[in-house]
Each structure stands twice: as structure tokens, then as C-alpha cells.
């Protein structure tokens, strides 16, 4: 039994058998052999090399007459497949670690791929592909009939991988896949998005889960707490079965009430919206009772096709609006960071303080203007709001607004229909903007607090950095002070203040947020039924008192304790689930 902790990115609990994905779509069934089979494992490897070389020789001969360049590439593959150093290291790895031939091969090949990558030479990048091709050839020869088609899995599985790619998940049979766990990734990685879209638990950032788990191991994935248990004992299985059952029952009940408004007992309505990345998520958002889309992340559109222009954006927005059937849609303009940009991006020492988000957009007006055009045009098709991320100063805001004006002029001249009165808002993610909110309020229609970045920038903590992650405290009094001031400023100026970000996803924080006066929040679609249920159990004057009490406290831990106690008293069944 072994417990690993990572980042929970899609809620739920699952107990199932592991399917370990390695080297693209090849499944490695086993990682270890018993000691008495080590010699035969080495023979199996040598046989696979011989067989692969025979295949290569035939191909080289066949191609040599027609396509010489391909034959040359294959002869390099043959050299690599016969490489004496590779053979020695793979054999040694089988012998020393009792690895299967497949696993030893993958490990050794990966090491050389990394070595080549470290040399950072464009000439060698071709060789990396060659090496990977050879690995694939040897693997498929080794596995022979043991390769199982991912698309016709016989049993339910949880998929364990280093990092899931769209190409891999596209091959998986969604009916048989019950959970994801990966070595790397974050809240916005492909794994996270797929997990939420399929409604199955997913945990990422588990370091080396893909090499710790053997195909066929029993695995528990706890998508609430971010835990993965490898080969759990009977007590744990019983505990998790009970939790899964309870949570499922609760989910069903909550979902049946999802369409009811989120109104406190004393009649204060809170609008609960959904955060999404893909048009395909809208349907489940509406089913879960979303009052609209409070945050549509558009980076995906750009990353999938960096040259995607206005029309690609517009088509995505149109498809989202169609599924929304008249509910409002808040589109955030490109929030690309030094960490998210694909090749050709900037190399910065400190990307989170670098040219990201609106700064990148203002420095790259081409893609920004194309997106603004698409958003303004989409405004003709339904209630669209435009949201600018990571604004830090008035001049930055004014410059962005000026560009939007120019784009609107352009559309007017071209006689293309668009929404003349599109509401424009900003995300408050940086303390500097929160502190000058009264100057901002006169220029925009709404303010939306992005808590993930606001916490990160207020506390100077990179949550992805394991050495300081424990300092990341959303309940730090400084953060709460900024949010409460912002809500007050909004009320004074008659400007709506909403909150999107993970803070609203934690049920225990909800009483505080409602108590601070927030009347619009946005969370992942699956969490909406629960969030609405919690809000329906609140009494406004009670939570106002609670939040006033919390604002007096000097320490985040103390505040969290207070909120936890409050939640246990008022909505125990939801807290229990975590």
C-alpha cells in the first residue's frame, strides 16, 4: 500500500485497475519479472531486436530501390536498434532491477532522449524522433499480441500516464475509463479538462506515479483530496467504497435540485456561473444549473492553432452561445503566460512576473485584435461580456479599452454587425488593481476577482513550487481584506463584483464569500449543484456576522478553522465528502 498526493483537478472517487500508458499508445502490462525469469527476459529482448532488424532489413531493401532517403532513415534506425551500448544498458537494467524487457527499454530510451534534449541542438532533434521510433518498433515487437487496443478495453480502468495528450485520450474508450492520474500537469492541463468533461476523478502532479504503478495494480483515485492510493488494503477499500457511495448519492440528490435558484434562506439571490475551457463543457454546465458562463478560458483556441484568427474564435463562441440558449457568456481574452506559450514563446526568468496575459496581448496586437473582433461580433448572437485579465494599472486598462474602441470602429466601417454596448470588465488578479479599484470602477461594467492569481501575487507564492506551496493560503487576512474592500468599492460605485477561481470551489469558504457580499461566483460545472445547495442553507445576516468576525482575525489558519467549524455545524454532509 502506498499513498501519493497530487493536485486534485476533477472531483470524484474511483477504485479500479490501473492501465499504465507509456510511449504513446503502447500499453506496458507489467514492469517486473520474477528473478528466475531474468535470463529468459533478456533472451526475449535479444529476440525482439533480431526480429525488428529483420523487419527493417526487408523495408530497407524494398525502399532502397525507390525512395532512397527513407531507406537511409531506416538504416539509422537499424544502427540504433543494434547499438551495443543500448543493449548493454538494457540488459543490465533487466538484471539489476528485475524489470521486464519493455520497461527496461522504455527507461533506457527515455534517458537518452533526455540526454539528447539537454544538448539542445536542432540537428539532434531529428535523432530524438528516430530514437522514439526505434523504441516503438522494439516495444511493439516485444509486446506482440500483448498490445491491447485502447479503444476496446474489456474492463473498467483508471489511466496512469506521465502526461496525457489529446492524441492518447482520443483513443480511449470513455465508457471504460474511470479516472486519470498523471506525473505532471496542472489545473488547466489536458488531463484536468478531460477529467472534468468526462465527469471522472483526476489527480495530476504526482511526480512519478507512472513509474510507481504497475499495470493491473489496484488504484484508488480521490479527486476531492488529490490522493492516489496504490494497492490499498481492505480497510481503505471499504472506507473509500463507503465514501464513494455516499458522495454519489449526494451528487444525485444535489443534481436533482441543481436548477433551483441559489438563494439564502432570507432571500438573497447568488448567481452561480460555470468556468469552462471547451464548448463541449457547456452542456454539462447548463445541466448542472449554471446561470451562465462566468469564465470562458480561450487560451485553448490559441494553443491548438496559434495562427487561429478571428473566424476560429468566432466559431467557438457561436457554438458556446448556441448551447447556452440565452444565458450570459463572459469571454476572457487570451491569458497566455510564459508558462503556457508554445514554441517560439519568450524565455523568461520569472514568467509569472513577465510578459503574460494582457501584457502579451498588448505586445502582440495581431492575435488580440482578431479575438476582440470575434468577441464583439459574437455579442450580436447572445448576451456576451468581455473580460480583460491581469490588468495592473489604469494606463494598461485605458490602452486595452482604446484598442477595443478602434476594433469597434473598424467593424462599423466594414458594416459588420456587432454588439455596440458589450459589457467590458476586468479581472482583479493583482493587488495593485484591487487597491485602485475605485479608479477602475468608473471605466468598466464589472469587476471579477480571479482568486488563484490574486493569492499568488499577494503572498508572493508560486503554488506549483513544492518548496513554498504550503504558504499558499487563500484565507490569508491580506487576501480577504482585498476582496472585502473590492466588494465594498463595487457597491459604492454600483459596479457588479463577481468571483471566479478556486476559492469559490471550496464549500467551507462559501459562507464567508456570501457574507462579504458577493452575489455572483463562477466555479467548475460539476461543483455547481453543491455550491448552490450550500448557499441555500445560509442565512445572510448570519454569514455577514461570520465574515465580520473572520476579518478581525490575524491568521489564515485561525480563519480556516473557524470556517471549517461553521461548515460542520451547518452543512455537515457536504463537508464530510472531503
Amino acid at each position: 500500500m502506498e499513498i501519493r498526493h497530487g493536485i486534485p483537478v476533477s472531483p470524484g472517487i474511483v477504485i479500479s485497475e490501473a492501465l499504465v500508458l507509456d510511449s504513446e499508445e503502447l500499453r506496458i502490462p507489467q514492469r517486473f519479472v520474477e528473478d528466475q525469469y531474468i535470463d529468459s527476459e533478456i533472451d526475449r529482448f535479444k529476440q525482439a531486436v533480431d526480429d525488428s532488424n529483420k523487419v527493417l532489413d526487408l523495408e530497407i531493401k524494398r525502399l532502397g530501390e525507390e525512395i532512397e532517403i527513407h531507406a537511409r532513415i531506416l538504416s539509422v534506425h537499424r544502427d540504433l536498434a543494434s547499438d551495443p551500448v543500448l543493449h548493454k544498458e538494457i540488459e543490465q537494467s533487466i538484471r539489476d532491477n528485475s524489470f521486464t524487457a519493455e520497461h527496461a527499454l522504455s527507461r533506457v530510451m527515455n534517458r537518452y532522449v533526455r540526454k539528447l534534449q539537454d544538448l539542445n541542438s536542432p540537428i539532434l532533434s531529428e535523432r530524438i524522433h528516430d530514437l522514439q521510433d526505434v523504441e516503438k518498433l522494439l516495444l511493439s515487437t516485444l509486446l506482440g499480441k500483448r498490445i491491447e487496443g485502447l479503444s476496446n478495453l474489456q474492463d473498467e480502468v483508471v489511466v496512469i500516464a506521465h502526461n496525457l495528450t489529446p492524441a492518447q485520450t482520443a483513443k480511449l474508450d470513455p465508457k471504460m475509463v474511470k479516472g486519470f492520474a498523471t506525473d505532471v500537469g496542472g489545473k488547466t492541463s489536458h488531463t484536468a479538462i478531460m477529467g472534468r468533461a468526462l465527469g471522472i476523478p483526476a489527480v495530476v502532479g504526482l511526480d512519478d506515479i507512472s513509474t510507481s504503478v504497475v499495470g493491473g495494480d489496484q488504484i484508488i483515485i480521490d479527486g476531492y483530496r488529490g490522493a492516489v492510493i496504490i494497492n490499498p488494503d481492505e480497510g481503505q477499500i471499504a472506507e473509500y467504497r463507503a465514501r464513494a457511495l455516499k458522495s454519489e448519492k449526494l451528487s444525485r440528490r444535489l443534481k436533482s435540485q441543481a436548477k433551483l435558484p441559489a438563494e439564502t434562506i432570507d432571500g438573497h439571490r447568488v448567481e452561480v456561473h460555470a468556468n469552462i475551457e471547451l464548448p463541449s463543457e457547456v452542456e454539462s454546465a447548463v445541466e448542472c444549473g449554471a446561470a451562465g458562463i462566468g469564465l470562458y478560458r480561450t487560451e485553448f483556441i490559441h494553443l491548438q492553432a496559434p495562427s487561429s484568427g478571428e473566424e476560429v474564435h468566432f466559431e467557438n463562441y457561436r457554438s458556446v452561445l448556441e448551447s447556452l440558449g440565452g444565458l450570459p457568456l463572459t469571454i476572457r481574452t487570451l491569458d497566455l503566460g510564459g508558462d503556457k506559450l508554445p514554441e517560439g514563446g519568450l524565455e523568461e526568468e520569472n514568467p509569472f512576473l513577465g510578459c503574460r496575459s494582457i501584457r502579451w496581448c498588448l505586445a502582440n496586437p495581431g492575435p488580440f485584435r482578431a479575438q476582440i473582433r470575434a468577441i464583439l461580433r459574437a455579442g450580436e448572437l447572445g448576451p456576451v461580456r468581455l473580460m480583460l485579465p491581469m490588468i495592473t494599472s489604469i494606463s494598461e486598462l485605458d490602452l486595452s479599452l482604446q484598442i477595443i474602441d478602434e476594433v469597434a470602429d473598424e467593424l462599423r466601417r466594414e458594416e459588420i454587425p456587432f454588439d455596440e454596448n458589450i459589457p467590458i470588465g476586468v479581472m482583479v488578479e493583482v493587488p495593485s488593481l484591487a487597491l485602485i479599484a475605485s479608479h477602475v470602477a468608473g471605466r468598466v461594467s464589472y469587476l471579477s476577482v480571479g482568486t488563484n492569481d490574486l493569492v499568488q501575487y499577494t503572498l508572493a507564492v508560486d503554488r506549483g513550487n513544492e518548496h513554498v506551496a504550503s504558504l499558499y493560503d487563500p484565507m490569508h487576512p491580506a487576501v480577504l481584506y482585498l476582496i472585502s474592500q473590492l466588494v465594498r468599492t463595487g457597491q459604492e460605485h454600483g459596479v457588479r463584483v463577481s468571483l471566479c477561481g478556486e476559492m469559490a470551489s471550496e464549500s467551507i469558504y462559501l459562507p464567508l464569500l456570501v457574507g462579504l457580499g458577493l452575489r455572483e461566483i463562477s466555479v467548475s460545472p460539476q461543483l455547481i449543484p453543491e455550491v448552490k445547495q450550500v448557499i441555500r442553507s445560509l442565512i445572510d445576516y448570519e454569514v455577514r456576522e461570520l465574515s465580520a468576525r473572520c476579518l478581525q482575525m490575524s491568521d489564515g489558519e485561525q480563519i480556516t478553522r473557524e470556517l471549517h467549524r461553521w461548515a460542520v455545524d451547518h452543512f455537515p454532509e457536504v463537508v464530510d465528502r472531503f
Partner: protein
Amino acid sequence: MSSVSETLKITHSSGLHARASTEFVRLAQRFSASVSVSRIGGSTVDGKSTIAVMTLGAQLGDDIMIETTGPDAEDALAALTELVRLDFHGV
């Protein structure tokens, strides 16, 4: 067992990379002598392994030392140094 060596400079523009390393290893494999290649200031690897020679990372201007050991060590060294001097026949 006789062992001979020679130190020389890489003058091939793309270094001992990719195709150059393939040429080198293929030639080395024709001899029964064992061949080792060192990058001065770097590591020493088996000269009959493409993957090892490739990851040596020897670039234009680097000094490398070739050492051969075995009955045909002299011939092997002569052939290999010539290959390096002739910039791997321009591959």
C-alpha cells in the same frame, strides 16, 4: 594488447552529431579493435555505439581523442582520424 591514440579538432560545421556520428560508428565497426572517443573536458564513450557518440555532444571546435586497442588498432585509428579530418566526407 597494443593501444594507440590521437587527439584532433572537430572541423565539421555540425560537429560529431547525427549523420557524422553514424558514419564514424559504421567505420569503427569494421575493425576488430575496440574504439573509444573522448571529448576533451567531457566524457569518454564507446566509439562503436551511435547513441553514445551522439550524446557525447562534440561540436565544431571541440577537441576529441580517439583511442583504439587491438590487433588492427593502427589501421582503425588511421581510418577514423582521416574520416574526422575529411569532415566525415561532408555528410
